[in-house]
């Protein structure tokens, strides 16, 4: 898919911007703090309705502004006008101080974003890896998001009951309906995450092999205390075993919110890798490996939002990354320093403005 044009109003450090990007590789260059990442955020939000950077909507509107808006044209395929959609999104401050996020969904529109925070997928806490796989699973299966929201709702309510210290039979009877829902919704989450991991595996091996000089063998696995089980009954049984500890801690101790991904290179935990460049490369490879399965699921290629994706990589690896990007559809790549790439459209980002270089 492609973004034909975008209009950005009162969004981060942009007052108004009207911009027509190129259909393939767009290089966004400019000094620090000029709005490169903000522009990627706006492009991503136009496509998906959400920011890849924050869940706090209040951060997004230009400081002091009561609303933000985005408009633009999304197209799939190059020719047919039927495959073009003009979308509008607005963030508006409500009376109670909250923010309303309005705009329609475009079923086939997808964006894959890479940024410095993705290093956390490799060396951060398990939560970062769960977020990664849930984000990817949502791009493959949009229903995953509703399941995730429902799971969190059930979990919060079950934890509250555990904290209430309900003992004995009355406590068990109160927990029961939440156990059943947790098990059912939890297993649905786990099943989709496993499918997502399987969909990632082959491409990850190919992409990492192509990018890294060492051609290391990389592997991702889904890790859960439930082993290979796929029935809600298994999660129910695990909850029953954990009951005593859960009541003491006031927390749900088994379920997909405790699961993790194992990411290994040549059978070594990627976290243990000393080289920062290597960690960045694995993180980038994970995002690039998403492209093919997401394209197949959505019926059109996602746009790529790559924030400073080349930094800390050596020239040889950079060249391989750029070669890989040459096969992608529309790409937005930011760099703080000038960079020459054949066939790329180059734009200068400066103080909330974008101009062809």
């Amino acid at each position, binding site marked *: 898919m492609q973004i034909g044009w975008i209009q950005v109003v009162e969004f981060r450090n942009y007052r108004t911007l009207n911009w027509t990007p190129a259909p393939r590789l767009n290089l966004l260059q400019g000094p620090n703090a000029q709005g490169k990442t903000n522009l990627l955020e706006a492009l991503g939000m136009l496509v998906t309705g959400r920011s890849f950077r924050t869940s706090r909507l209040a951060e997004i509107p230009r400081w002091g502004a009561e609303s933000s808006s985005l408009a633009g044209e999304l197209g799939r395929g190059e020719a047919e006008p039927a495959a073009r959609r003009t979308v509008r999104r607005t963030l508006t401050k*409500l*009376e*109670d101080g909250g923010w309303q996020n309005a705009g329609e969904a475009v079923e086939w529109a997808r964006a894959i974003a890479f940024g410095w925070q993705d290093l956390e997928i490799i060396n951060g806490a398990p939560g970062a890896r769960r977020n990664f796989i849930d984000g990817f699973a949502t791009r493959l299966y949009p229903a995953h998001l*509703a399941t995730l*929201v*429902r799971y969190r*709702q*059930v979990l*919060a*309510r*079950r934890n*509250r*009951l555990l904290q*209430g210290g309900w003992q004995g039979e009355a406590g068990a*009877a*109160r927990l*029961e*309906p*939440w156990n*059943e*829902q947790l098990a059912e919704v939890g297993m649905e989450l786990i099943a989709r995450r496993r499918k997502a991991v399987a969909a990632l595996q082959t491409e990850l091996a190919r992409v990492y092999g192509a990018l890294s000089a060492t051609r290391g063998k990389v592997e991702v696995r889904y890790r859960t205390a439930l082993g290979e089980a796929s029935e809600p009954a298994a999660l129910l049984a695990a909850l029953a075993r954990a009951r005593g500890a859960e009541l003491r801690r006031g927390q749900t101790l088994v379920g997909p919110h405790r699961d993790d991904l194992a990411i290994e290179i040549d059978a070594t935990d990627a976290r243990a890798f000393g080289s920062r460049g290597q960690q960045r490369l694995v993180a980038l490879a994970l995002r690039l490996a998403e492209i093919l399965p997401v394209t197949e699921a959505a019926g059109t290629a996602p746009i790529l939002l790559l924030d400073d994706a080349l930094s800390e990589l050596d020239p040889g690896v950079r060249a391989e990354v750029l070669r890989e990007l040459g096969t992608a559809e529309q790409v937005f790549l930011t760099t703080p320093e000038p960079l020459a790439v054949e066939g790329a459209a180059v734009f200068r980002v400066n103080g909330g403005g974008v101009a062809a270089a």
Partner: protein
Amino acid sequence: MAHYPEPVARLIDALQRLPGIGPKTAQRLTFFLLKRPAEEVRELSESLVAVKDRIVYCQTCFNVTDADPCRLCADPARDARLLCVVEEPNDLMAMERTGEYRGRYHVLLGALSPLDGIGPDDLKVRELLGRLENGTVGEVILATNPNVEGEATALYLARLLRPLGLRVTRIARGLPVGGDLEYADQVTLSKALEGRREIS
């Protein structure tokens, strides 16, 4: 600093306590009412007082009513073998609007909600069990909302009713995700009722 005259400030303050109404909306409503004819405003204030004075909960089904038992409970044409359990009186109204359901109702006046500290004892559960004692009811339809609280309430009741040996069904999913019965359209709700299934 300028202040509103006391009656104006008092109304703004009162309106603001209603759910979903912030200070700006409360002001807008107040000035809207000031412009309306006196009798229209009197009608509004009298209807506010009347709901508090004349409306009670039916002591059988816990629907809101001006006569106890309510018209639905008193109607001999309604099938006493079917009992539909809903969370709130407005859910009952939504069910009635489908025109498909000819049984009776039981309103729980809430749903299990750990975050609000609402447990089974805060709902009309004991009263529900009481209504099932004489064996007239053959099927209980659990029509609580499709959100996590409504689902938990249905699962809780299903487990509680199982030993009584009657048919316990849950209205079909397919209602808007996380939505309320109240907002489901009539066709969707009729389908959900029709597609109800026994829950184990």
